[in-house]
């Protein structure tokens, strides 16, 4: 777990300081896991799971963006899926319309999404929490409406790039170095890593500390001379950027995009899994992506569980998380494991060491045996 908000988080000079042991262990574990995900996993997985893991990598960027807004700044956005849709649309349009290198398209889609996302939420940013959540919920509804009319580009001409009379829809292209599914999976993981690093750097520097201040108390942040609107907009812009990149990445992964695949309830599901995964830690974003993209695929493959059960599960999960475990799985799981470890150790060794009578009891047992 990367706990950048922890008390041990070093200041900006942290990169030059000698990292302590825990940081080193964490960094090593993360690196090993990433190397496994990049090189060991693809040959072991069937095509179904390669596709699923690609989705996990892409959606981890989306949950990263939303987790940043919710956990770091306290902005509950219900329109993050709409932002993803904008990114996917722009990405698909650019990929069909131009021959630009793929990486450039990713960045452009991110930038366009960043501008649109910031512009749309700018009026809402001046409002307090609840109003922002509601206006973004309506935004999600509005984008669904526009998308149903506009459709995703499918290689047609004109601004929308949509041709309703196509019988054979051309596929969205992929980069030359990542044409196959496993290669595209690796590419997605690498892009996700870059996005996580981008957010990580932000959190470690001044914006991260300012966001933490805003989350604690906006009036206090104002009183400290912080331009809260600028920093809230910054967070929104950063989240929109990474989500836009994820959208363009999704365009290449799915190769065909349909507006029907982005119903409005997915916006709510997205917030639910982010809260369940844990919005306060970066690892929570990965957990959330697994909940959102991997769990349904796994359950469907194993027992053909319909997705509706997952929706119900996420609904129950979000209520449970808010009522009893605000830190989500990323926060709760290590705690529970520690508790389990202590419990098991206690059971194996008998009563806690040092407890009166522990030795005597053991000695007595030895005698009777």
């Amino acid at each position, binding site marked *: 777990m990367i706990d950048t908000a922890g008390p041990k988080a070093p200041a900006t000079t942290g990169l030059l300081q000698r990292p302590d042991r825990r940081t080193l262990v964490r960094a090593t574990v993360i690196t090993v896991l990433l190397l496994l995900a990049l090189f060991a996993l693809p040959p072991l997985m069937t095509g179904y799971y390669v596709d699923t893991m690609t989705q996990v990598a892409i959606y981890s960027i989306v949950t990263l963006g939303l987790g940043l807004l919710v956990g770091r700044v306290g902005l509950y956005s219900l329109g993050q899926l709409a932002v993803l849709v904008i990114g996917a649309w722009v990405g698909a349009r650019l990929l069909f319309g131009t021959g630009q290198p793929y990486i450039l398209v990713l960045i452009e889609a991110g930038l366009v999404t960043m501008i649109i996302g910031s512009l749309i939420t700018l*009026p809402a940013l001046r409002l307090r929490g609840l109003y922002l959540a509601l206006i973004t919920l309506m935004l999600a509804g509005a984008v669904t*409406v526009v998308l149903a009319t506009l459709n995703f580009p499918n290689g047609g001409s004109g601004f929308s790039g949509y041709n309703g009379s196509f019988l054979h829809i051309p596929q969205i292209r992929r980069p030359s170095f990542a044409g196959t599914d496993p290669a595209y999976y690796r590419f997605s993981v690498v892009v996700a890593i870059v996005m996580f690093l981008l957010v990580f750097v932000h959190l470690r520097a001044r914006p991260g500390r300012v966001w933490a201040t805003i989350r604690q108390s906006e009036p206090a942040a104002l009183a400290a001379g912080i331009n809260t609107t600028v920093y809230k907009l910054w967070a929104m812009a950063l989240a929109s950027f990474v989500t836009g990149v994820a959208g363009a990445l999704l365009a290449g992964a799915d190769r065909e995009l349909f507006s029907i695949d982005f119903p409005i309830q997915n916006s709510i599901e997205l917030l639910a899994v982010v809260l369940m995964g844990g919005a306060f830690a970066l690892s929570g974003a990965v957990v959330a992506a697994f909940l959102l993209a991997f769990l349904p695929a796994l359950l469907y493959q194993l027992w053909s569980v319909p997705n509706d059960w997952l929706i119900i599960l996420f609904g129950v999960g979000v209520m449970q998380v808010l009522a009893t475990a605000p830190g989500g799985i990323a926060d709760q799981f290590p705690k529970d494991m520690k508790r389990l470890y202590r419990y098991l150790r206690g059971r194996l060794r008998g009563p806690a060491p040092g407890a009166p009578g522990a030795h005597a009891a053991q000695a007595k047992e030895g005698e009777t045996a």
Partner: protein
Amino acid sequence: MPSWSDFQPFIVSGLALGGIYALSGVGLVVLYRATGVLNLAFGAVGAMGAFIAWSIIQAGAPGWVGWIACILFAGVVTLGYGLLFGPALAGRGPLVQAVSTLGLALVLFGAIDLLWSTSAGQSRSISFPTDNGGFMVGQVQVNWTQVIALAAGVVITAGTHAFLRYSKLGTAMRAMANDREITATLGVPVRRVEASAWFGCGLLSGIAGILLADLAALDDTTLVFTVVISSLAAALIARLRSIWVTFAAALVIGLVHDLITPISSLTSYQDMTPFVLAAIALLVMSRGQVMTRSREEG
């Protein structure tokens, strides 16, 4: 450009829709003022009630059994949620409480999809005996269901107004909207007042659900999201405060939504009406806001 006569029928249907949004909006505002919870599961509860009513009517029971079942189900589920999560989340701020009701919405949405699967391709509908009768206003046919919808909006808004002003329970709710702690100190049974607010809000969501299932469609996405978004927009325009402003805003939203229908270039965007109107209203109202005051209000 369509002529005036093209618009006339949509004034009637728009007012009927506005009436439903109004009673939903009033339900949302009263619950929010009394308990501090914005019930985003409002539409989902009504939707599930409407589907239950459909099943009951389909099984051969008379229509009124289904309608009452819908309204009661909505009331009981909302009350149950309020009793279970109201105290657990009290003091966690309006945002967390609102997001938690989204959890209930997800549960109900998944359950509706599971129990009344749309994959079979069958279309469902609920119809009232009042759908057929009616009268003419000028050249426009008005059916009694539309009259009922608008009347329900007016009656419930006026009734709620009178209830809050003159009844003991209503006074307690207004007191709680102002200051929960002081109200509790004065000996008002806060929990019981909250529970009745939850139950009332649930009943209203059931009424909205069954009416909308008839006038619009018995379709989960429509019922779950359109109602919430439209009535929420009305409530937002009223700053979650005045029920009469909510009522007026709801009528405007319903009217604008339906009046767009004949304008062919805008028809497919008509569902954006609540979002656009609420965004404009919020933009205008957020000017000159004082940040450091009233943290609890937002």
